[in-house]
């Protein structure tokens, strides 16, 4: 059993401590917005926030995540209001297939939290998620739109 604090709620889950956090979030907590892409912390589809830091949840164990504040894509909006990154994504029509976008949005939200007006170089350094559809142009434009708002 493990207690995980996800999106402000405590989940008591029947899961082994060495299970990757990704699978506890998806299968045990039932929050499927966080995606599996590679399982080796390469692609970023599983990015969540742990204590506000963008983290690839496939590379973190449940044991390591216990007692920490975890935010997934489902917890990014507050109340009925979408996060500014989600709003910008909709305004800019960023997603294509959309599968990588939960992770992409979480990575961008963390970047903007740290650097509200990131340069292109900041974006290049912080956003290392794979998008096979190739939405990078819209991702960059949407980030700059938020930064200049």
């Amino acid at each position, binding site marked *: 059993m493990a207690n995980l604090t996800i999106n402000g709620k405590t989940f008591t889950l029947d899961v082994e401590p060495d299970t990757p956090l990704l*699978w506890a979030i998806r299968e045990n907590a039932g929050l499927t917005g966080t995606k599996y892409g590679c399982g080796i912390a390469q692609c970023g589809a599983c990015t969540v926030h742990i204590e506000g830091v963008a983290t690839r949840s496939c590379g973190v164990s449940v044991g390591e995540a216990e007692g920490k504040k975890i935010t997934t894509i*489902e917890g990014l909006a507050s109340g009925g209001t*979408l996060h500014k990154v989600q709003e910008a994504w909709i305004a800019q*029509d960023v997603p294509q297939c959309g*599968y990588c976008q939960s992770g992409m949005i979480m990575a961008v939200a963390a970047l903007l939290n740290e650097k509200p007006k990131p340069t292109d170089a900041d974006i290049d350094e912080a956003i290392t998620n794979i998008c*096979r559809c190739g939405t990078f142009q819209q991702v960059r434009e949407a980030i700059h739109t938020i930064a200049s708002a």
Partner: protein
Amino acid sequence: MNKHVSPKMNRRAFVIGSATLGAGLAIGLDIPFGGPAMVRAADGSPEIGAWVVVRPDDTVVIRIARSEMGQGSLTGLAQLVAEELECDWTKVTTEYPTPGQSVARKRVWGDFSTGGSRGIRSSQDYVRKGGATARVMLIQAAADAWKVPASECKAENSVITHTPSGRTTTYGKVAEAAAKLTPPAEVKLKDPKDWKLIGKGVKRLDTVDKTTGAMIYGVDVKLPGMMNAAIKDCPVFGGKLKSFDEAKIAGMKGVKKVVKVGDTAVAVVADTWWHARTALEALPIVWDEGDNAKVSSESIAKWLAEGLDDAQPAYVGNKNGDAKAAIASAAKKVEAVYSYPYQNHATMEPMNATALYTADKCEVWCGTQNGEAAFAAVLEASGLPAEKCDVHKVMLGGGFGRRGQTDYVRQAVMIAKQMPGTPVKLLWSREEDMAHGKYHPITQCKLTGAFDANNNLVALHYRLSGQSILFSLRPEALQNGMDPAAFQGVAQSGEAAFGYSVPNLLIEHAMRNPHVPPGFWRGVNVNHNAIYIECFMDELAQAAGQDPLEFRRKLMSNHPKHLAVLNAVAEKIDWDKPAPQGVYRGIAQVMGYGSYVAGAAEISVTDGSKIKVHRMIASTDPGYVVNPAQVERQIAGSFVYGLSALFYGGCTVKDGKIEQTNFDTYNSMRISEMPKVESVMVPSGGFWGGVGEPTIGVAAPAVLNAYFAATGRRIRSVPLRDQNITFA
């Protein structure tokens, strides 16, 4: 709020009045628009022809047979219907009919296949007619109620107006009456100049759920009591499963069953996928790898190289004059050998499908590019007839051609069949996905060009050796053994026609089919053919001492549409003016999927091995542009996919297996490596070309030609990582 409604789980979308169920898929294409019997959607709203449901609140539900996998066709197809329907676009939503429903209604929605950049171009005519038919019926219903001639009424924005009296009503109010009418035998489509919605870059209909985590992909499907399966198929293609030692994983947490899947694979079924995967990793498996275990990239390369020899048999795909004789007597000759490797689709979402099998029913939930092929796979694997099977399509986490195949659907059914009554979700690990792709085919090409004494190109011999996709996947499409698709981009005529006139031309294919299964990989045969011909055109221009653009132009006077897109990129990149200091340019053009495309690149190179791509330009003439915002995204996306393959891709074979296992060994471009792609759309009208794939062909040769301009070094094989060339 204009929001896409995700296809719902566990529901029969329609109540079908008097449907007679077909026995299988062998039913001719028959697309009636409506019918005498009234059909209602699940919520009771009337269907106005097969493509349109109108709810009392004026919401219009447009049926989409093709699959959305990111390419935007769901939105584009809805635009086509809505244009003719004259409905309020802000009240449009979409719905996937199931393949089972389509078969039961004599394929009323036509082809479900979503590949070959055909989603829009090959259904545009009948979906527009579907919209127009519904509009005529709705207007007729209003006219009947008012007892006026329909010719005095018009529709706009879901409002019907009787022009002489000024009376109005809405689609929602007359939908019931309209659904009872006999559809018109013929409808007239709008002149393209009168389009209001087609050609507009309206927002996609499926974005909101993709930003909140709410969109349901195959991997997210949940059914009551569902179990999860992880699978390993014999890593050597063509090999078999010999044995596995189930006792070794007995008692592992969550494990319910270990099952054999066909002759080649084993799956562990558990409460969670993580438990299934963990147990599968611990399961001792013995494979019968067979003779294919002797095959390597080296042995394949050697076999393909033999096919470059003129003494070997080859299929002739395009020919005029006598190229061999002209080359033999030419003043000057240029020869080069190129090659292109296997590539994995590497969709972000690995292959998966969820199946529920009971004695009298088999249903599957999955992302698929071809609902009807998936349906046929369910019939075959379950052994049940069509009326007892169905496929519920969900969003695809990428397709790129991979999800047109149904291997993963078949496996899911074979597993579920061994656990009747229990829904089972089969998910491939990324490693399984890398090991069991349907790979971009492997080829080599020997090109020989010949000049006369005045540096005019008098002959070109293009000898391709390598794998045929159709041989493996659609043998019925071979023409006396020849794979016509092998000549995509260099064909004599048709939707992928060669854009140059050379007095003596011979383009031929020595077919060599290694054991690695090939598939349709975004751009398909255009990818390597465009690299081969467009890089070689640069080599020929260099040999003739001419500018690469001018050299091409002289050969293109009989191909004005090819030339127009080439000129468009040349103009956009200021080809006539010098590039910025330290920056070098390359250019390329090709035709594929009915569209004419060209590309140009500006790069700089450090130490001969570090490439910085500064600018990428693409031009396309697809005839008509339905949604320019989405076309722009397809162009940019195709460049990311094509350049990822050029720089990082390439699947190699050792001991009969694919060596790459995950994104650490099969990398993909990141945002830092990709410049903005500048799109120039020059739709010339009168034909419908595809959009998702054609432009991918010009990305790699434009960069390779720019690399030569920068370094004087020709790169004739892919990927660049094999030559220690990477992004700066």
